[in-house]
């Protein structure tokens, strides 16, 4: 254990021993319902041990109402079995946030308790405090605190009138969430409040046929890869199917659909990789053709960025050879991806975009993030990521960037998720000064695994 961690742990242990309130979160316990208060207490205890011992020792069992795994002499906390008040989600977040800041100066591999089997979307429900993960295969939403403790998991379908809706994606939209959900008949967009309980149908978007996974929100717009109906009869005759694939922009208040860049090659948008992002009020996406090209979408105008924005070794996009012809075949497809040098994601933060790349043959790090300045259209620098995971999902944040470390894909909808790698944001945003570019710090982060 590093001296700084040891010192912090000792201070906390002293506070605990002398009966002081654990954290400011506890001060608010009296104002909460018994269950919410106990949940916060449980969360605080588990966060405390999770952060400093780098492993979780406590978790809240929602079904039984118990704070379980009390192996440090505290014993389980019995709670009232009543419905969780909606505000408790944010209360948990508030208590966790204070703890998180204590370790904002180092990277950590945080084990994920009771992990989901698949991640379609991951996002901060509350920045730096509550992480949401959506598993579209089971229509479930899991909420985690930054110490990797499961806070809430919703697995039941949403009842929307007579319809039973299964969640497929969830993305923050203004002060609420925008969900993509489907029933037996069709898929559509819905607004969902931050408590994940109140659902309202979003306007029906004309001509929208399909919206693939990985869409993003930019102001009132949704931008993603998908298909729109083609009204042009001549075109319809040519391709015989009545729709056009490409990057599409949906404006929810105006209920409009627009195909901004027709793009037929859909292979890489079907494999759960994030190629669309927002930064500085614009949307950016990578067109994965035979070469990887970054586009900026400002209103309805898509502009191709200079080729120099993509590192030379990731310009060429190999064709995917493994056919996707069954749930089990997906494994082979992802094994092929694992062995391929490729740009696998695009993430936005502040006014910059970050290209996530995988190079299986690289000597220093298989995973790298390239910081790109889209205004000057140049590469700023490279940050090696200290992860050995076969697959990664990144969640940018003001204090931390999280890299959710995912295992090999067993079949469609199943891969092992063990750890979350948290990296201080300043280590990412300033590549030239990043400790990750120093071999000793990089090794230290990697060995924390």
């Amino acid at each position: 254990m590093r001296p700084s961690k040891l010192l912090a742990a000792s201070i906390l242990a002293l506070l605990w021993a002398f009966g002081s309130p654990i954290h400011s979160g506890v001060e608010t316990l009296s104002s909460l319902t018994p269950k919410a208060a106990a949940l916060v207490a449980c969360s605080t205890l588990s966060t405390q041990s999770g952060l400093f011992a780098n492993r979780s020792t406590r978790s809240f069992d929602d079904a039984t109402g118990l704070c379980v795994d009390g192996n440090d002499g505290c014993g389980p906390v019995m709670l009232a079995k009543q419905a969780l008040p909606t505000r408790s989600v944010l209360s948990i977040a508030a208590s966790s946030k204070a703890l998180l800041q204590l370790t904002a100066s180092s990277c950590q591999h945080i084990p994920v308790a009771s992990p989901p089997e698949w991640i379609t979307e991951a996002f901060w429900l509350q920045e730096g405090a509550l992480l949401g993960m959506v598993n579209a295969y089971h229509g479930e939403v899991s909420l985690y605190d930054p110490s990797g403790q499961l806070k809430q998991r919703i697995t039941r379908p949403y009842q929307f009138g007579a319809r039973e809706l299964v969640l497929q994606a969830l993305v923050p939209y203004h002060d609420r969430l925008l969900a993509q959900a489907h029933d037996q008949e069709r898929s559509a967009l819905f607004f969902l409040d931050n408590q994940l309980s109140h659902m309202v149908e979003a306007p029906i978007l004309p001509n929208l046929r399909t919206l693939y996974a990985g869409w993003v929100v930019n102001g009132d717009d949704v931008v993603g890869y998908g298909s729109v109906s083609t009204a042009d009869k001549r075109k319809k005759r040519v391709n015989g199917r009545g729709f056009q694939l490409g990057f599409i922009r949906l404006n929810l208040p105006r209920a409009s659909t627009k195909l901004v860049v027709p793009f037929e090659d859909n292979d890489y948008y079907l494999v759960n990789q994030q190629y669309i992002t927002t930064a500085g009020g614009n949307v950016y996406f990578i067109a994965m053709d035979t070469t990887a090209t970054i586009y900026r979408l400002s209103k309805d105008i898509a502009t191709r960025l200079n080729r120099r924005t993509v590192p030379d070794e990731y310009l060429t996009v190999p064709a995917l050879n493994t056919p996707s012809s069954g749930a089990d075949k997906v494994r082979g497809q992802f094994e092929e991806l694992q062995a391929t040098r490729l740009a696998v994601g695009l993430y936005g933060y502040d006014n910059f975009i970050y290209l996530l790349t995988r190079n299986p043959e690289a000597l220093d790090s298989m995973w790298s993030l390239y910081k790109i300045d889209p205004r000057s259209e140049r590469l700023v620098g490279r940050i090696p990521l200290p992860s050995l995971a076969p697959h990664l999902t990144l969640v940018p944040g003001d204090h931390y960037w999280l890299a959710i470390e995912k295992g090999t894909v067993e079949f469609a909808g199943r891969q092992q998720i063990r750890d979350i790698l948290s990296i201080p944001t300043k280590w990412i945003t300033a590549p030239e000064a990043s400790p990750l570019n120093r071999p000793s710090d990089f090794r230290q982060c990697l060995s924390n695994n």
Partner: protein
Amino acid sequence: MPDTPQKEDDTESLLAEIENLKVQNLLLEQEADFRRRFTEHVTDVDGRLRAGKFQLGLAGLVVLCIAWYGTYQKLAQQLEQQLGQRVQTRLDQEFNTKGIQERISRSATDAAHRIIQQRLVSFGNAESDEIKCLIDRLGRDLFFLQCHTDGGDYDVGRGACVNPGGERFSANAFPKINCGEISETHTSHAPVQATSR
């Protein structure tokens, strides 16, 4: 009485007989030669005839096969087409529209799952888990197959069939039985109440 002319006559007679014999011998030789040659010729002709017959037979067989193949296949195809048309006609009569077919298929799947779910109650947890996972896997494979048959692509990210052929959108409709769900002890089973606008 002198005997000289008698001797001369005898000699001539003998010489004539010798000549005659020579001629006969020649004839016999010629005949033998002819027979030999004829036999050779017959053998040769026979051989040729046999070879010819074989080749002819082979060619015949080939022709016969082609003819059989052509007629049989055509007939089989015709029969198949006729049968297919009859089956399709019958199906159309039975299940009027594609929508109804889909609904029937879905209802059948649902019913099968209900039955399986009911039966699963009597199993132990381990067997139940295994069977549920198997159903899950089979459901996914079936969905994949259906998606590809419809001319669509499988979006691995959200487990949905996208861009199927024709004008319809096919959402991910395979049964949502979760292998992990059963063993999850931290899963919240509180029902989610959503309200419509």
